[in-house]
Protein backbone atom coordinates (compact mmCIF):
# COMPACT_ATOMS: atom_id res chain seq x y z
CA UNK A 1 0.00 0.00 0.00
CA UNK A 2 1.41 3.33 -1.01
CA UNK A 3 0.98 6.49 1.03
CA UNK A 4 3.59 8.96 -0.20
CA UNK A 5 4.50 11.81 2.17
CA UNK A 6 7.50 13.39 0.46
CA UNK A 7 7.71 13.30 -3.32
CA UNK A 8 10.52 14.68 -5.45
CA UNK A 9 10.11 14.56 -9.22
CA UNK A 10 12.78 15.47 -11.75
CA UNK A 11 14.58 17.77 -9.34
CA UNK A 12 17.60 19.63 -10.68
CA UNK A 13 19.83 22.07 -8.87
CA UNK A 14 22.98 23.95 -9.80
CA UNK A 15 25.50 25.83 -7.72
CA UNK A 16 26.91 28.04 -10.43
CA UNK A 17 28.40 25.68 -12.99
CA UNK A 18 28.16 22.72 -10.66
CA UNK A 19 25.19 20.45 -11.32
CA UNK A 20 24.59 19.18 -7.75
CA UNK A 21 21.24 17.42 -8.20
CA UNK A 22 20.49 15.63 -11.45
CA UNK A 23 16.94 14.50 -12.23
CA UNK A 24 16.23 13.33 -8.71
CA UNK A 25 13.10 11.22 -8.26
CA UNK A 26 12.45 10.13 -4.74
CA UNK A 27 9.31 9.14 -2.86
CA UNK A 28 9.23 8.73 0.89
CA UNK A 29 6.24 6.84 2.23
CA UNK A 30 4.54 7.80 5.45
CA UNK A 31 6.34 6.11 8.32
CA UNK A 32 9.29 5.18 6.16
CA UNK A 33 12.90 5.74 7.21
CA UNK A 34 15.10 6.56 4.24
CA UNK A 35 18.82 6.79 4.78
CA UNK A 36 20.77 8.70 2.15
CA UNK A 37 24.41 7.80 1.86
CA UNK A 38 27.16 8.59 -0.59
CA UNK A 39 30.57 10.21 -0.88
CA UNK A 40 31.06 13.86 0.04
CA UNK A 41 29.96 16.19 -2.68
CA UNK A 42 27.45 13.68 -4.00
CA UNK A 43 24.59 16.10 -3.30
CA UNK A 44 22.98 14.24 -0.41
CA UNK A 45 22.95 17.21 1.99
CA UNK A 46 21.64 19.49 -0.72
CA UNK A 47 18.91 16.95 -1.46
CA UNK A 48 17.92 16.92 2.20
CA UNK A 49 17.85 20.74 2.35
CA UNK A 50 15.66 21.09 -0.74
CA UNK A 51 12.87 19.19 0.99
CA UNK A 52 12.08 22.15 3.28
CA UNK A 53 13.35 24.63 0.72
CA UNK A 54 16.42 25.76 2.60
CA UNK A 55 17.83 25.24 -0.88
CA UNK A 56 15.77 26.31 -3.86
CA UNK A 57 15.64 24.07 -6.91
CA UNK A 58 16.10 24.98 -10.57
CA UNK A 59 13.55 22.57 -12.00
CA UNK A 60 11.32 19.70 -10.98
CA UNK A 61 8.69 19.38 -8.29
CA UNK A 62 8.70 18.69 -4.58
CA UNK A 63 5.55 18.06 -2.62
CA UNK A 64 4.90 17.19 0.99
CA UNK A 65 1.72 15.40 1.97
CA UNK A 66 0.27 16.15 -1.43
CA UNK A 67 1.01 19.89 -1.36
CA UNK A 68 3.68 21.38 -3.59
CA UNK A 69 6.34 23.42 -1.75
CA UNK A 70 5.19 27.05 -1.75
CA UNK A 71 7.34 30.03 -2.70
CA UNK A 72 9.02 32.14 -0.02
CA UNK A 73 6.48 33.63 2.39
CA UNK A 74 3.94 32.73 5.06
CA UNK A 75 2.80 29.53 3.38
CA UNK A 76 6.34 28.24 3.19
CA UNK A 77 6.83 29.03 6.88
CA UNK A 78 3.68 27.03 7.67
CA UNK A 79 4.94 24.11 5.67
CA UNK A 80 8.34 24.22 7.31
CA UNK A 81 6.61 24.03 10.67
CA UNK A 82 5.52 20.52 9.65
CA UNK A 83 8.99 19.44 8.59
CA UNK A 84 11.50 18.91 11.38
CA UNK A 85 15.11 19.62 10.56
CA UNK A 86 18.24 18.54 12.42
CA UNK A 87 21.53 20.07 11.29
CA UNK A 88 25.09 18.83 11.36
CA UNK A 89 26.08 21.86 13.43
CA UNK A 90 23.03 21.70 15.77
CA UNK A 91 22.19 25.40 15.27
CA UNK A 92 20.51 25.76 18.63
CA UNK A 93 19.41 29.31 19.40
CA UNK A 94 22.47 30.54 21.26
CA UNK A 95 20.66 33.22 23.28
CA UNK A 96 17.93 30.90 24.56
CA UNK A 97 17.99 28.23 27.23
CA UNK A 98 17.59 24.59 26.32
CA UNK A 99 13.91 24.64 27.27
CA UNK A 100 13.30 27.91 25.42
CA UNK A 101 14.93 26.39 22.34
CA UNK A 102 12.30 23.69 22.42
CA UNK A 103 9.33 25.94 23.21
CA UNK A 104 10.04 28.94 20.97
CA UNK A 105 8.56 27.32 17.86
CA UNK A 106 5.39 26.01 19.50
CA UNK A 107 4.74 29.36 21.22
CA UNK A 108 5.56 31.71 18.34
CA UNK A 109 4.57 29.59 15.36
CA UNK A 110 1.81 27.31 16.63
CA UNK A 111 0.46 29.80 19.16
CA UNK A 112 0.75 27.37 22.08
CA UNK A 113 0.34 28.68 25.62
CA UNK A 114 3.63 29.02 27.46
CA UNK A 115 2.62 26.65 30.24
CA UNK A 116 1.55 23.97 27.76
CA UNK A 117 4.67 24.44 25.66
CA UNK A 118 6.87 24.23 28.77
CA UNK A 119 5.21 21.01 29.92
CA UNK A 120 5.51 19.43 26.50
CA UNK A 121 9.08 20.74 26.14
CA UNK A 122 10.12 19.14 29.41
CA UNK A 123 8.50 15.90 28.36
CA UNK A 124 10.48 15.91 25.12
CA UNK A 125 13.72 16.77 26.90
CA UNK A 126 13.00 13.85 29.19
CA UNK A 127 12.54 11.65 26.16
CA UNK A 128 15.92 12.60 24.69
CA UNK A 129 17.52 12.30 28.11
CA UNK A 130 18.44 15.88 28.97
CA UNK A 131 15.65 17.08 31.23
CA UNK A 132 18.19 18.05 33.88
CA UNK A 133 19.84 20.57 31.54
CA UNK A 134 16.64 22.48 30.71
CA UNK A 135 17.80 25.82 32.13
CA UNK A 136 21.31 25.79 30.68
CA UNK A 137 22.40 27.57 27.53
CA UNK A 138 23.45 25.56 24.46
CA UNK A 139 27.12 26.55 24.84
CA UNK A 140 27.19 24.82 28.23
CA UNK A 141 26.25 21.45 26.70
CA UNK A 142 28.31 18.81 24.93
CA UNK A 143 27.79 18.29 21.22
CA UNK A 144 25.79 15.13 21.76
CA UNK A 145 23.53 16.87 24.24
CA UNK A 146 23.07 19.83 21.91
CA UNK A 147 22.09 17.56 19.07
CA UNK A 148 19.53 15.81 21.26
CA UNK A 149 18.08 19.21 22.18
CA UNK A 150 17.91 19.99 18.47
CA UNK A 151 15.94 16.77 17.93
CA UNK A 152 13.59 17.71 20.78
CA UNK A 153 13.19 21.17 19.26
CA UNK A 154 12.14 19.64 15.95
CA UNK A 155 9.81 17.13 17.64
CA UNK A 156 8.09 19.91 19.59
CA UNK A 157 6.48 21.03 16.34
CA UNK A 158 4.87 17.60 15.85
CA UNK A 159 6.36 17.32 12.38
CA UNK A 160 5.05 15.02 9.69
CA UNK A 161 8.58 14.20 8.64
CA UNK A 162 12.02 14.72 10.12
CA UNK A 163 15.07 15.59 8.06
CA UNK A 164 18.51 14.81 9.46
CA UNK A 165 21.44 16.42 7.68
CA UNK A 166 24.51 14.51 8.86
CA UNK A 167 23.41 14.74 12.49
CA UNK A 168 26.45 12.97 13.93
CA UNK A 169 29.22 14.20 11.65
CA UNK A 170 30.28 17.00 14.00
CA UNK A 171 30.28 14.81 17.10
CA UNK A 172 33.04 13.14 19.06
CA UNK A 173 32.87 9.35 18.53
CA UNK A 174 31.68 8.68 22.07
CA UNK A 175 28.71 11.01 21.61
CA UNK A 176 27.51 9.59 18.35
CA UNK A 177 25.67 6.70 19.91
CA UNK A 178 23.58 8.78 22.30
CA UNK A 179 22.23 10.67 19.28
CA UNK A 180 21.77 7.56 17.14
CA UNK A 181 19.86 5.91 19.99
CA UNK A 182 17.37 8.75 20.04
CA UNK A 183 17.03 8.55 16.27
CA UNK A 184 16.57 4.80 16.35
CA UNK A 185 13.79 5.08 18.88
CA UNK A 186 12.11 7.69 16.70
CA UNK A 187 12.40 5.37 13.73
CA UNK A 188 10.87 2.44 15.55
CA UNK A 189 8.18 4.79 16.88
CA UNK A 190 6.95 5.27 13.32
CA UNK A 191 8.37 8.71 12.48
CA UNK A 192 8.90 9.39 8.80
CA UNK A 193 12.57 10.22 8.44
CA UNK A 194 15.06 11.22 5.79
CA UNK A 195 18.55 10.77 7.20
CA UNK A 196 21.75 11.83 5.50
CA UNK A 197 24.54 10.06 7.32
CA UNK A 198 27.78 8.16 7.19
CA UNK A 199 26.66 5.85 9.99
CA UNK A 200 26.31 2.52 8.25
CA UNK A 201 25.33 0.77 11.46
CA UNK A 202 22.36 3.09 11.82
CA UNK A 203 21.41 2.54 8.19
CA UNK A 204 21.44 -1.23 8.68
CA UNK A 205 19.57 -1.07 11.93
CA UNK A 206 16.92 1.59 11.39
CA UNK A 207 16.43 2.19 7.68
CA UNK A 208 13.60 0.79 5.62
CA UNK A 209 15.46 1.90 2.53
CA UNK A 210 18.93 3.03 1.64
CA UNK A 211 19.42 5.58 -1.12
CA UNK A 212 22.92 5.78 -2.52
CA UNK A 213 23.93 8.99 -4.26
CA UNK A 214 26.93 9.83 -6.34
CA UNK A 215 27.73 12.94 -8.40
CA UNK A 216 24.25 14.38 -8.00
CA UNK A 217 22.35 11.27 -8.99
CA UNK A 218 20.52 8.59 -7.08
CA UNK A 219 22.50 5.55 -8.14
CA UNK A 220 20.77 2.92 -6.07
CA UNK A 221 17.72 2.60 -3.88
CA UNK A 222 17.13 -0.63 -2.03
CA UNK A 223 16.66 -2.29 1.33
CA UNK A 224 19.63 -2.03 3.73
CA UNK A 225 20.03 -5.80 3.61
CA UNK A 226 20.30 -5.81 -0.15
CA UNK A 227 22.43 -2.69 -0.35
CA UNK A 228 25.05 -3.79 2.15
CA UNK A 229 25.27 -7.42 1.05
CA UNK A 230 24.67 -7.20 -2.68
CA UNK A 231 24.85 -3.68 -4.08
CA UNK A 232 23.94 -3.63 -7.75
CA UNK A 233 26.06 -0.72 -8.97
CA UNK A 234 29.85 -0.71 -9.27
CA UNK A 235 29.97 2.75 -7.72
CA UNK A 236 28.19 1.51 -4.58
CA UNK A 237 30.40 -1.58 -4.42
CA UNK A 238 33.47 0.63 -4.62
CA UNK A 239 32.12 3.00 -1.97
CA UNK A 240 31.24 0.19 0.41
CA UNK A 241 34.58 -1.53 -0.05
CA UNK A 242 36.29 1.67 1.00
CA UNK A 243 34.28 2.33 4.12
CA UNK A 244 33.70 -1.19 5.35
CA UNK A 245 37.19 -2.63 5.09
CA UNK A 246 38.63 -0.89 8.14
Amino acid at each position, binding site marked *: MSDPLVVLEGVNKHFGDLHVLKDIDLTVERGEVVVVIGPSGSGKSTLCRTINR*LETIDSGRISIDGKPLPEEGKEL*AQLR*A*QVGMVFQS*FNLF*AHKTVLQNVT*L*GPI*KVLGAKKADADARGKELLERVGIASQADKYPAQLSGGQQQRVAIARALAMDPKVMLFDEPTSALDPEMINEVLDVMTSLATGGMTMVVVTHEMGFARRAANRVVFMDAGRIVESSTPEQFFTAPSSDRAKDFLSKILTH
Partner: protein
Amino acid sequence: MDTVFGNLDVFAEAFARTLSLTLFAAVGALILGTLIAAMRVSPVPPLRWLGALYVQAVRNTPLTVVFTFVVFGLPEVDVKLPFYRFAVLALTLYTAAFVAEAVRSGINSVATGQAEASRSVGMTFMQTLRLVILPQAFANIIPPLASVFIALLKNTSIASAFGVFEGIQGMNQLINDDGSAVIAIILTAAICYLGLALGLAALFNQLERRVRAS
Protein backbone atom coordinates in the same frame (compact mmCIF):
# COMPACT_ATOMS: atom_id res chain seq x y z
CA MET B 1 35.12 84.77 30.99
CA ASP B 2 32.30 86.83 32.49
CA THR B 3 30.39 86.45 29.27
CA VAL B 4 30.62 82.67 29.64
CA PHE B 5 29.71 82.47 33.29
CA GLY B 6 27.08 85.18 33.00
CA ASN B 7 25.38 83.26 30.20
CA LEU B 8 25.51 79.68 31.43
CA ASP B 9 21.73 79.60 31.11
CA VAL B 10 22.02 80.37 27.38
CA PHE B 11 24.50 77.54 26.97
CA ALA B 12 22.27 75.22 28.96
CA GLU B 13 19.24 76.08 26.88
CA ALA B 14 21.13 75.88 23.59
CA PHE B 15 22.74 72.54 24.31
CA ALA B 16 19.55 71.11 25.74
CA ARG B 17 18.20 71.68 22.23
CA THR B 18 21.25 70.01 20.73
CA LEU B 19 20.62 67.05 23.00
CA SER B 20 16.90 66.86 22.23
CA LEU B 21 17.57 67.06 18.47
CA THR B 22 20.03 64.20 18.94
CA LEU B 23 17.65 62.07 20.98
CA PHE B 24 14.63 62.49 18.72
CA ALA B 25 16.66 61.88 15.58
CA ALA B 26 18.41 58.91 17.22
CA VAL B 27 15.10 57.22 18.04
CA GLY B 28 13.77 57.95 14.56
CA ALA B 29 16.96 56.76 12.88
CA LEU B 30 17.06 53.62 14.98
CA ILE B 31 13.55 52.64 13.88
CA LEU B 32 13.96 53.64 10.23
CA GLY B 33 17.50 52.28 10.04
CA THR B 34 16.48 48.89 11.45
CA LEU B 35 13.64 48.70 8.92
CA ILE B 36 16.04 49.49 6.09
CA ALA B 37 18.50 46.89 7.36
CA ALA B 38 15.66 44.36 7.46
CA MET B 39 14.83 45.27 3.86
CA ARG B 40 18.45 44.74 2.87
CA VAL B 41 18.52 41.18 4.20
CA SER B 42 14.95 40.26 3.23
CA PRO B 43 14.17 37.38 0.87
CA VAL B 44 12.31 39.78 -1.46
CA PRO B 45 14.71 41.20 -4.10
CA PRO B 46 12.86 44.51 -4.75
CA LEU B 47 12.97 45.29 -1.02
CA ARG B 48 16.69 44.53 -0.96
CA TRP B 49 17.28 46.87 -3.90
CA LEU B 50 15.20 49.62 -2.35
CA GLY B 51 17.12 49.34 0.92
CA ALA B 52 20.47 49.40 -0.85
CA LEU B 53 19.38 52.36 -2.96
CA TYR B 54 18.36 54.31 0.13
CA VAL B 55 21.63 53.64 1.93
CA GLN B 56 23.80 54.49 -1.07
CA ALA B 57 21.83 57.60 -2.00
CA VAL B 58 21.65 59.07 1.48
CA ARG B 59 25.02 57.98 2.81
CA ASN B 60 26.81 59.52 -0.13
CA THR B 61 25.01 62.85 0.02
CA PRO B 62 26.21 65.72 2.23
CA LEU B 63 23.97 66.31 5.22
CA THR B 64 23.59 69.94 4.12
CA VAL B 65 21.96 68.74 0.91
CA VAL B 66 19.58 66.49 2.86
CA PHE B 67 18.70 69.46 5.08
CA THR B 68 18.17 71.74 2.10
CA PHE B 69 15.99 69.10 0.48
CA VAL B 70 13.83 68.73 3.59
CA VAL B 71 13.62 72.39 4.64
CA PHE B 72 13.10 73.89 1.17
CA GLY B 73 11.89 70.88 -0.81
CA LEU B 74 9.08 69.59 1.40
CA PRO B 75 7.22 72.95 1.59
CA GLU B 76 7.07 72.78 -2.23
CA VAL B 77 4.85 69.73 -1.88
CA ASP B 78 2.87 71.40 0.91
CA VAL B 79 4.58 69.68 3.82
CA LYS B 80 5.09 72.55 6.23
CA LEU B 81 6.59 72.02 9.66
CA PRO B 82 8.43 74.17 12.18
CA PHE B 83 12.19 74.29 11.46
CA TYR B 84 12.91 72.24 14.56
CA ARG B 85 10.83 69.33 13.26
CA PHE B 86 12.31 69.65 9.80
CA ALA B 87 15.72 69.38 11.44
CA VAL B 88 14.73 66.22 13.33
CA LEU B 89 13.39 64.78 10.08
CA ALA B 90 16.52 65.60 8.07
CA LEU B 91 18.79 64.20 10.77
CA THR B 92 16.63 61.06 11.05
CA LEU B 93 16.64 60.40 7.29
CA TYR B 94 20.40 60.95 7.09
CA THR B 95 21.41 58.99 10.19
CA ALA B 96 19.09 56.08 9.31
CA ALA B 97 21.39 55.14 6.43
CA PHE B 98 24.31 54.75 8.82
CA VAL B 99 22.22 52.94 11.44
CA ALA B 100 21.07 50.55 8.72
CA GLU B 101 24.66 49.63 7.91
CA ALA B 102 25.55 49.15 11.58
CA VAL B 103 22.51 46.89 12.07
CA ARG B 104 23.20 45.00 8.87
CA SER B 105 26.79 44.27 9.88
CA GLY B 106 25.46 43.02 13.21
CA ILE B 107 22.95 40.77 11.45
CA ASN B 108 25.72 39.37 9.27
CA SER B 109 27.77 38.60 12.37
CA VAL B 110 25.19 36.02 13.48
CA ALA B 111 25.89 32.54 12.09
CA THR B 112 23.66 31.63 9.13
CA GLY B 113 22.68 28.38 10.88
CA GLN B 114 20.68 30.42 13.39
CA ALA B 115 18.44 31.77 10.64
CA GLU B 116 18.18 28.36 8.98
CA ALA B 117 17.15 26.75 12.25
CA SER B 118 14.52 29.36 12.94
CA ARG B 119 13.11 29.14 9.42
CA SER B 120 13.06 25.37 9.83
CA VAL B 121 10.73 25.56 12.82
CA GLY B 122 8.40 27.62 10.69
CA MET B 123 9.18 31.16 11.72
CA THR B 124 8.54 33.88 9.16
CA PHE B 125 11.30 36.20 8.05
CA MET B 126 10.23 38.90 10.50
CA GLN B 127 9.97 36.41 13.40
CA THR B 128 13.40 35.06 12.57
CA LEU B 129 14.83 38.56 12.57
CA ARG B 130 13.03 39.73 15.69
CA LEU B 131 13.26 36.62 17.87
CA VAL B 132 16.53 35.02 16.84
CA ILE B 133 18.84 37.23 14.80
CA LEU B 134 18.52 40.75 16.23
CA PRO B 135 18.79 39.71 19.91
CA GLN B 136 22.07 37.98 19.06
CA ALA B 137 23.24 40.76 16.77
CA PHE B 138 22.54 43.48 19.33
CA ALA B 139 25.83 43.23 21.22
CA ASN B 140 27.72 43.61 17.95
CA ILE B 141 25.58 46.52 16.80
CA ILE B 142 26.22 48.68 19.86
CA PRO B 143 29.83 49.79 19.19
CA PRO B 144 29.26 51.00 15.60
CA LEU B 145 25.95 52.49 16.72
CA ALA B 146 27.77 54.58 19.35
CA SER B 147 29.94 56.08 16.58
CA VAL B 148 26.89 56.78 14.47
CA PHE B 149 25.11 58.60 17.30
CA ILE B 150 28.18 60.62 18.25
CA ALA B 151 28.37 61.72 14.62
CA LEU B 152 24.67 62.55 14.86
CA LEU B 153 25.28 64.71 17.94
CA LYS B 154 27.83 66.76 16.04
CA ASN B 155 25.72 66.78 12.89
CA THR B 156 22.91 68.58 14.73
CA SER B 157 25.09 71.68 14.38
CA ILE B 158 24.06 71.83 10.70
CA ALA B 159 20.57 72.71 11.92
CA SER B 160 21.95 76.11 13.05
CA ALA B 161 22.17 77.09 9.38
CA PHE B 162 18.48 76.27 8.91
CA GLY B 163 16.94 78.49 11.54
CA VAL B 164 17.03 76.10 14.46
CA PHE B 165 18.21 77.33 17.82
CA GLU B 166 20.72 74.84 19.23
CA GLY B 167 24.33 74.81 20.48
CA ILE B 168 25.92 76.61 17.56
CA GLN B 169 23.22 79.28 17.34
CA GLY B 170 23.54 79.85 21.07
CA MET B 171 27.27 80.21 20.64
CA ASN B 172 26.94 82.63 17.72
CA GLN B 173 24.42 84.70 19.61
CA LEU B 174 26.80 85.15 22.53
CA ILE B 175 29.70 85.98 20.21
CA ASN B 176 27.59 88.63 18.55
CA ASP B 177 26.78 90.07 21.95
CA ASP B 178 30.39 90.18 23.10
CA GLY B 179 33.05 89.71 20.45
CA SER B 180 35.89 90.12 22.92
CA ALA B 181 35.06 86.77 24.57
CA VAL B 182 35.01 84.82 21.32
CA ILE B 183 37.67 82.28 22.30
CA ALA B 184 36.17 81.55 25.69
CA ILE B 185 32.73 81.15 24.15
CA ILE B 186 33.93 78.81 21.40
CA LEU B 187 35.88 76.74 23.91
CA THR B 188 32.84 76.47 26.14
CA ALA B 189 30.73 75.31 23.23
CA ALA B 190 33.39 72.75 22.32
CA ILE B 191 33.44 71.51 25.91
CA CYS B 192 29.66 71.14 25.83
CA TYR B 193 29.86 68.99 22.69
CA LEU B 194 32.71 67.02 24.18
CA GLY B 195 30.82 66.43 27.42
CA LEU B 196 27.68 65.27 25.59
CA ALA B 197 29.67 63.00 23.28
CA LEU B 198 31.61 61.45 26.13
CA GLY B 199 28.37 60.95 28.05
CA LEU B 200 26.86 59.24 25.03
CA ALA B 201 29.91 56.99 24.65
CA ALA B 202 29.82 56.08 28.35
CA LEU B 203 26.14 55.23 28.04
CA PHE B 204 26.81 52.88 25.13
CA ASN B 205 29.76 51.29 26.91
CA GLN B 206 27.54 50.57 29.85
CA LEU B 207 24.84 49.18 27.58
CA GLU B 208 27.30 46.94 25.77
CA ARG B 209 28.70 45.58 29.02
CA ARG B 210 25.20 44.80 30.22
CA VAL B 211 24.13 43.11 27.01
CA ARG B 212 27.28 40.99 26.85
CA ALA B 213 26.91 39.96 30.48
CA SER B 214 23.36 38.70 30.01
